[in-house]
């Protein structure tokens, strides 16, 4: 099967990006150095083409009620023009995907989902609509999506003449016009830094991308994106969360609002005692990688690394790992097995890097 291309594919090739298949798309892995791309986002700004991600719209008088019903987090009580992160669960509480829902109006919600799960999510959500006065639409192919991330992101967009409200906090959203095109701007992202995601037509995205690059904003690829999200310990579908675990196994209890009215998975999650626990570990030397075994101090295997990388900011190998909750050592002493040698790991109660988002 041939790979899909985003509308910026030619622009990535023109920038000599190293390309790789991701979720069925031929995507830029890196343009220059992963280290430089990560630092650009932490210190200035970087731009990612994330047009492969999926966009669903829910229209109708019960749009908000419906979205609240399919997700575990609280959407009903979110303010207008706010975004909410949530897992999407089955009736048994296992995770189908994670998503961000944007409350554009009382009768219109945008849902942004992972590229690899567009079809799976659509097939699930579209069977759950009966009884709700809504219309569900898949606009994944029509939208381009750019993520401009970093402490300078706001200044750059304002300089371009994009009218952002004075008060536009993290996880807010705005529908506006710029240069004659309707765009949706959200103050969201997955890097831990302040930043924006711009949903637009392909033509607008191409113009914005090239203007950002022309103005010295660093193009950043999926490799930097992954390092950034691991540094701030954000889970990723297919790694920390998957079809076999619940949000309660993966450090996402804060997104499961058991006190809200009925939602899919509520009964199962209310009774569930987690099998796994997500831990953050780092090494003084060496790099933990996905799939490496995690052991207790006695050398007994208790879990597996789900995402690992060299942290650009801390200069240490860092990882997220799922360990069996009943076996998680109280002394917080963990070992990681790398090429048949066990290395002592440092346990982190908090993320490795504090993102700068407000």
């Amino acid at each position, binding site marked *: 099967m041939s790979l899909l291309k985003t509308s910026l594919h030619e622009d990535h090739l023109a920038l000599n990006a190293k390309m790789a298949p991701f979720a069925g798309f031929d995507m830029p*892995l*890196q343009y220059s*150095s*992963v*280290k430089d791309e990560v630092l650009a986002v932490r210190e200035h700004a970087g731009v990612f083409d994330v047009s492969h991600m999926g966009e669903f719209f829910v229209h109708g008088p019960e749009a908000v009620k419906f979205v609240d019903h399919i997700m575990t987090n609280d959407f009903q009580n979110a303010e207008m023009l706010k975004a909410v992160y949530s897992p999407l669960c089955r009736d048994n509480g296992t995770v189908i995907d994670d998503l961000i829902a944007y409350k554009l109006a009382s009768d219109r919600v945008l849902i942004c989902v992972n590229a690899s799960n567009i079809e799976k999510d659509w097939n699930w959500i579209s069977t759950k609509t009966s009884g709700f006065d809504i219309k569900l639409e898949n606009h994944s192919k029509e939208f381009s999506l750019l993520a401009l991330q970093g402490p300078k992101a706001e200044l750059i967009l304002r300089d371009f003449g994009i009218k952002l409200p004075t008060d536009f906090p993290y996880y807010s959203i705005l529908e506006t016009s710029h240069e004659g095109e309707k765009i949706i701007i959200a103050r969201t992202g997955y890097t831990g830094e302040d930043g924006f995601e711009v949903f637009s037509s392909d033509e607008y995205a191409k113009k914005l991308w090239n203007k950002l690059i022309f103005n010295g904003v660093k193009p950043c690829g999926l*490799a930097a994106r*992954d*390092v950034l999200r691991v540094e701030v310990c954000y889970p990723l579908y297919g790694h920390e969360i998957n079809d076999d675990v619940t949000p309660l196994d993966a450090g996402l209890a804060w997104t499961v609002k058991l006190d809200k009215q009925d939602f899919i998975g509520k009964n199962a999650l209310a009774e569930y005692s987690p099998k796994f626990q997500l831990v953050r570990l780092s090494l003084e030397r*060496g*790099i933990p*990688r996905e799939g490496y075994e995690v052991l207790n101090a006695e050398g007994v295997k208790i879990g597996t690394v789900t995402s690992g*990388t*060299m942290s*650009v900011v801390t200069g240490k*190998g860092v990882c997220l790992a799922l360990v069996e909750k009943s076996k998680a050592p109280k002394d917080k002493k963990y070992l990681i097995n790398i*090429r048949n040698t066990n290395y002592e790991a440092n346990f982190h109660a908090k993320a490795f890097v504090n993102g700068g988002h407000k």
Partner: protein
Amino acid sequence: MSNNIPVELKYTKDHEWTKIEGDTVTIGITDFAQSALGDIVFVELPEVGKTLNHHQTFGVVESIKSVSDLFSPIAGTVLEVNKDLVNAPEKCNTEPYGSAWMIKVKLSNPDELNNLLSASDYQNFLSTL
């Protein structure tokens, strides 16, 4: 992609270079290899005295997102290891043929040297990739 190939060295299809001085062979990774890997952040090398077979894994280089094995181009015994790379793996990117040499091996079978590629053979090999 960066692609410097000094003529005085011999190469392998695993993108290692060798410098042959009598029965001592110095081994490192090529400019092409470092460029393909990107920022190298970790290097693991064997102990002095270790015996290596032809094509045996003798160490690992890791970039931020990848792990790659290092294969010994020849059989022999490790004479010397470049310990500086442990604390300065980024030298593999900046000076792949210089300060980022990895190991020196005492050659056990001189005939194996015939299997190594000349600079022009390696250049031709790269053009097929």
